[in-house]
């Protein structure tokens, strides 16, 4: 197999891992983001019980994203990580707080429990915000010369990255709310339905704003979408127009689904909404793995390393997806008081 084919396959696999991370850890981060809006401690216990058996597996996709980038695209990893130095550590520290809070919240006594409740929620919000900041910094491009990051330590902090950050927090909150619709009943189910409706609206606005902002970051993006401030290149735009239309429809279906008291559909619509945004980004940034500096082929590890990794991934990824699905199936039931209290 040619080296460039291997690099393309790996770029696709890592993009898939990152998407699965957003779709899965997104909902458990989202539950943390919604924590402050819960009625009481009992409701927060139920919210946490809805994600406790699966959050660790979800977060492993983040490790695959980082580890996979290191293994398959060491040069992209070596260029991106220093560029995102501060937001990465912000994210990691936030993930530490929220990760240990799953256990610690149950072991803390009065003030301890209060503290770990705040830590869980704040950790989820900060981790999501930091990821959103990196997403924005990724889209706006990284200052790389000869494979090495040459920008400043705060390049990732711009109005655009603040916008993407807010958008991702809202998006994860939507995933979280939709997951709670699926996993809860009674009063919390009703509250989660209301959250889904409000967040569907907010996410629709946020996606629109981020899309417009993305068109402004680089002429190459504008060209690809056939859109400029003053004119629309219809033959180009018509090919990509299904994306914004699909996004709008999904937001509407989310709203309707919440009204119709559907259980699983809102979560699926939210994931599809993420997918639409993700594909839109891929169209904007193709073929760069470090926008607008490195392509997968330029950043790839040696062919024999990519081939060895692929031989592992071909059997292991289906097995991983298989047992992950099985664990989700085992814990598919709605959360009951039984699961939280004895």
């Amino acid at each position, binding site marked *: 197999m040619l080296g460039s084919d291997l690099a393309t396959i790996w770029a696709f696999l890592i993009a898939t891992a990152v998407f699965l991370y957003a779709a899965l850890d997104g909902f458990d981060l989202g539950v943390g983001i919604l924590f402050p809006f819960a009625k009481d401690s009992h409701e927060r216990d139920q919210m946490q019980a809805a994600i406790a058996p699966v959050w660790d597996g979800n977060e492993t996709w983040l490790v695959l994203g980082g580890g996979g980038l290191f293994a398959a695209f060491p040069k992209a990893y070596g260029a991106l990580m220093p560029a*995102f130095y501060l937001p990465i550590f912000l994210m990691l520290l936030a993930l530490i707080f929220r990760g240990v809070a799953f256990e610690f919240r149950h072991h803390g006594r009065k003030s301890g429990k209060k503290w770990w409740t705040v830590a869980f929620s704040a950790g989820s919000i900060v981790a999501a915000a930091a990821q959103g900041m990196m997403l924005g910094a990724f889209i706006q491009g990284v200052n790389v010369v000869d494979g090495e990051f040459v920008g400043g330590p705060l390049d990732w902090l711009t109005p655009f990255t603040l916008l993407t950050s807010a958008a991702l927090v809202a998006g994860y909150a939507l995933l979280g709310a939709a997951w709670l619709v699926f996993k809860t009943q009674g009063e919390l189910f009703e509250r989660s339905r209301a959250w889904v409706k409000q967040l569907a609206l907010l996410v629709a606005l946020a996606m629109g704003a981020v899309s417009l902002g993305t068109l402004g970051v680089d002429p190459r993006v504008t060209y690809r979408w056939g859109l400029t401030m003053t004119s629309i290149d219809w033959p180009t735009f018509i090919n990509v127009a299904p994306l914004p239309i699909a996004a709008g429809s999904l937001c509407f279906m989310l709203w309707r689904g919440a009204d119709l008291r559907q259980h699983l559909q809102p979560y699926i619509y939210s994931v599809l909404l993420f997918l639409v945004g993700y594909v839109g980004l891929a169209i904007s940034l193709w073929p760069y793995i470090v926008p607008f500096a490195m392509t997968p082929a330029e950043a790839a590890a040696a062919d024999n390393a990519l081939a060895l990794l692929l031989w592992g991934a071909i059997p292991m990824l289906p097995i991983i997806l298989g047992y992950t699905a099985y664990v989700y199936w085992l814990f598919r039931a709605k959360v009951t008081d039984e699961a939280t209290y004895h």
Partner: protein
Amino acid sequence: MEFDALLLSRLQFAFTIGFHIIFPAFTIGLASFLAVLEGLWLATKKPVFRNLYLFWVKIFALSFGMGVVSGVVMSYQFGTNWSVFSAQVGSVIGPLLGYEVLTAFFLEASFLGIMLFGWKKVGEKLHFFSTCTVAVGTLISAFWILAANSWMQTPQGFAHAADGTMIATDFAQVIFNPSLPSRFAHMVLAAFLTTAMVVAGASAFALLTKKAIAESRTALRMSVLMMALVAPLQVVVGHESGVVAHEYQPAKVAAMEGWWETKAQQPTLLFGWPDEKAETTHAAIGIPGMGSWIVAGDANAEVQGLDAFAPEDRPPVWITFWAFRVMVGMGFLMVGLGLWGAAVWLLKRLDTASLYHRALVLAAPAGFIAVLAGWISAEVGRQPWVVYGVLRTADAVSPVPAGSVATSLLFFLVVYAIVFSAGALYILRLISKGPDTDEDPPKQTSEPPGTPLGTGVKSAATKEG
């Protein structure tokens, strides 16, 4: 010494990995211990094994959580702080870390959910299978990370590509590099011993305070058996690891032993104060010839001292020397406690030997201390190289400003101090409460199986705010 990005990055890596390793070192052994306990429970249906399982699984959940979150940090830190290293060696050891994620991390994380939350939901066979899977996952994970680290100690099977980066010429040689077998065995045994010391200390404490007598006696026997068998074996494996290090990394061994001069009849120093400026070890007390005999099998063999290496190729001596002594000291302490335990057991006084119980409580952290000291001597001893003899640590660091690294390091210190204190408090609280037992009438706070995690009754009673 200047606090530049290099030194700060080294301090940060040492601190974060030192913090991280405490938890895997404990959970690798604890996962296997839990698998044995659950197997014994299913085979014998004796409630002590179930009670012990449900007790230690809570401590496992706390420790595993801390291991996971501190481990995620590691998968990013190679890039944030050591981007040149990552770009240089990614094609060689990247796949090893990739395999660790694919074959171990997902396995552990997914089946952990069943292990912790499935006690009442799934059949007992599936639950047992999940516990075993998590245990095997921890061992697979240890294998890959030790393979990557051992390659950095004893690199082989690679070449330099046209762009200056390293590529593997033979992955079998990369993975099964010379120091892997002994270092992997050394680490796994260290993990088992670390767990045995904690279980022994906790059980001895319960016996001293007369709690859960049946459970604590059983757990004490299991841990003393492990100690008595594995601690002496660890001495043999550790020696083998030292022999390999002497063959491939003679400067490291010279620093560990405090040898400055190349000569025959190198001593084994029991005490000494290495002085890098004077190139000597002050106040050295040792056994002449024993060092040569240990590493070369002959007391009269000539063995290289640090004078065989240019000063810029020598590791920091004082810290390597002392970390090594602390590790070995803890190792022999564990051998001694294992033998002492075996002796009182043979005399049928294991349950009443309160002096021995007190010693076990005091020695409960011995495994952690040994693991940390051992890793310090292995990693500091590898300096000034990040890949021994191939890539210098100074040439591997990221182009990030010192201010950024100082900021992240400061936050790590604060956050890890909070998380560690809370985690240690909760674990010690559980240990001081001891396992639930069938002997007494059920206590108010006893929980039925199915919530090994939450102290549900308590959280229901205590409202936040």
